[in-house]
């Protein structure tokens, strides 16, 4: 028996896949194949998945239109969530405010002015309950964009679900939980790297055992790129972090095939159209090869890199903000042609403020135009086979491999150790800052044009957009709410739960999730749980460098 070719295997998988209803033809009636390629080409749904993880791609299911939202109090954000669902959004993604991301309560002095500003303020289980009130969590998946306190937020989510009678095993969603890129790029950290990784390990092993529908980490290049990296650095650092989490889980006693299928990825869609598409294609190929050959994964799902995309916030301009709609549309199209599983499109006003409801709706409509009007969903990997795109994909892979070699060397053969040491030695941070500086110089010299910023300035003086205003009223409301919860709860129970958490944190072999869930149920605050852990783990201070 001869071995099945990629083309034959793709065809077999495609024939077995359920399809959306409707005709797969051009607007003028020309019938379209589900994918195109030479007999000996790579095909979608077949290792190494350069052309997509599914044989039928968007013919079976469109990407999830997952809009990231959060501001003010949990009640405010709940209203925006409902608006997104009414407008046809198919997934939710929660943005938390700075105090929550840093593990601080709203009434901490450092939280002043930040409560509910750039995300929703969450202090206790009571807020989590308000956040998801009236939303059917069984039929809409939820992503929670939080990292340092990710284990605490997961505990609150589980506690809230169980209080409302939903078994934790039924919960579907994603925790960002990618602490490595926080030290490298986004800079929202609390504990030192190695102690943080213990919490990540605890969430991976806990969800592997008890929450089969949960994605434990969304390994995120988005923030690395937003912080200024090149596309190749975004690709390489993100996948290296992914390898590090796999090694961490294996150290924690899981097999590669128990952890890899539950990692998802999150990439930026910047404005250089073909480079972005090549980046996504290279990402899938690299992940598949490394999982299979380097880490010995046998389950095909371990080889398949699934990813979320967000258009590039940094590409948007405060000048002539309406033109950001065009930038976002082009970036979103790159994500779709690159085979993304879900997509957030930025709003035109994001260089000015948090999105207004109207701006957010236009951003969602942009996705709907791509999905339902352009017909790009009929053919998987439509740019595959282009000499240009294939060559750029190979180049991305080469650049990433060169960076992996360096990271692996820093870790003496371990990607986990290489990523941690690269952070401790400021290597990632320095590379990203260098790339950001080079790019900025090209804008300042005029070598690179940004419409409305260094060219085509007519219209810059037009009336400004109506933007969302977060008032101090939200901060006052949240403080009153927190006061009330502290007043109503049983402090003895809280103390008991926090004492147990402190005790268990001292033993690195104990999984902290059960203690965190029990603490959440006593209405212990995010800040109380995080500072209890900080008593044991210490706090991380980045050495300032320019």
């Amino acid at each position: 028996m001869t071995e099945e070719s990629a083309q034959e295997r793709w065809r077999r998988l495609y024939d077995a896949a359920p399809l959306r209803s409707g005709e797969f033809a051009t607007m003028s009636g020309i019938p379209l194949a589900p994918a195109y390629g030479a007999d000996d080409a790579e095909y979608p749904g077949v290792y190494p998945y350069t052309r997509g993880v599914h044989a039928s791609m968007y013919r079976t299911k469109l990407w999830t239109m997952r809009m990231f939202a959060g501001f003010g109090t949990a009640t405010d954000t709940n209203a925006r969530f409902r608006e997104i669902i009414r407008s046809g959004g198919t997934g939710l993604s929660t943005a938390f405010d700075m105090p929550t991301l840093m593990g601080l309560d709203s009434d901490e002095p450092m939280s002043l002015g930040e409560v509910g500003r750039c995300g929703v303020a969450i202090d206790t289980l009571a807020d989590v309950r308000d956040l998801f009130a009236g939303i059917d969590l069984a039929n809409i998946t939820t992503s929670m964009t939080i990292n340092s306190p990710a284990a605490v937020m997961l505990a609150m989510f589980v506690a809230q679900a169980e209080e409302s009678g939903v078994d934790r095993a039924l919960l579907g969603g994603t925790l960002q939980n990618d602490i490595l890129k926080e030290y490298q790029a986004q800079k929202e950290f609390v504990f030192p790297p190695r102690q943080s990784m213990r919490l990540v390990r605890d969430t991976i092993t806990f969800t592997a055992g008890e929450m089969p529908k949960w994605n434990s980490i969304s390994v995120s290049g988005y923030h690395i790129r937003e912080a200024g990296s090149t596309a190749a650095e975004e690709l390489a650092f993100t996948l290296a972090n992914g390898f590090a989490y796999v090694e961490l889980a294996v150290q924690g006693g899981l097999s590669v095939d128990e952890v890899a299928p539950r990692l998802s990825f999150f990439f930026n869609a910047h404005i250089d159209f073909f480079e972005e598409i090549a980046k996504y294609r290279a990402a899938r190929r690299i992940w598949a090869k490394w999982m299979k050959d380097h880490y010995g994964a046998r389950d095909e799902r371990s080889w398949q890199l699934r990813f979320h995309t967000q258009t590039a916030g940094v590409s948007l301009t405060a000048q002539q903000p309406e033109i950001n709609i065009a930038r976002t549309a082009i970036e979103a199209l790159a994500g779709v042609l690159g085979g993304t599983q879900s997509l957030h499109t930025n709003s035109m006003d994001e260089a000015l403020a948090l999105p207004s409801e109207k701006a957010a709706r236009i951003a969602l409509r942009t996705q709907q135009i791509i999905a339902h009007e352009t017909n790009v969903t009929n053919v998987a990997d439509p740019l595959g086979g282009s000499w240009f795109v294939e060559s750029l994909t190979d180049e991305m892979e080469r650049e990433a491999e060169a960076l992996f070699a360096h990271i692996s060397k820093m870790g003496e053969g371990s990607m986990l150790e290489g990523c941690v040491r690269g952070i401790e030695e400021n290597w990632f941070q320095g590379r990203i800052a260098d790339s950001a500086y080079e790019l900025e110089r090209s804008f300042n010299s005029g070598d690179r044009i940004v419409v409305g910023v260094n060219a085509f300035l007519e219209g810059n003086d037009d009336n400004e957009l109506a933007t969302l205003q977060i008032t101090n009223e939200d901060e006052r409301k949240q403080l009153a709410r927190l006061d009330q919860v502290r007043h109503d709860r049983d402090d003895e129970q809280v103390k008991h739960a926090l004492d147990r958490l402190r005790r268990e944190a001292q033993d690195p072999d104990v999984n902290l999730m059960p203690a965190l869930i029990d603490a959440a149920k006593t209405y212990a605050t995010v800040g109380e749980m995080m500072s209890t852990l900080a008593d044991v783990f210490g706090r991380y201070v980045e050495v300032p460098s320019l």
Partner: protein
Amino acid sequence: MSLRVLVAKVGLDGHDRGIKVVARLLRDAGMEVVYTGLFQTPESVASAAIQEDVNVVGLSMLSGAHMTLAPLVVEALRSRGSDIPVVLGGIVPPRDIEELRALGVAAVFGPGSGADEIVATITGIVSLPS
């Protein structure tokens, strides 16, 4: 003598791309730049500015807390008897600029501000008689 600038991140906002890029651009323009790192308080910024004897303090804020925190930095300096001017860059809606100026912020640089504009403005502010 070259100008000395303290660039600072106040509060919980970890976005440090802008501050690092601007710091390097100011150095390219011949200024001496001091950076005290993330998560500073208004008080720690004021003390560092006075101790380092800088000509100007540059804040970078992208989380929306500028209306609360930028005036507190100005206040912290003035209460210590210092007249060091404070400038601000980041995501600042145009409607906030006038009020920030009234609260003592000497200049505001929104997204897309070029290196030449920032350098010229800072140089102009510092050369004003106080």
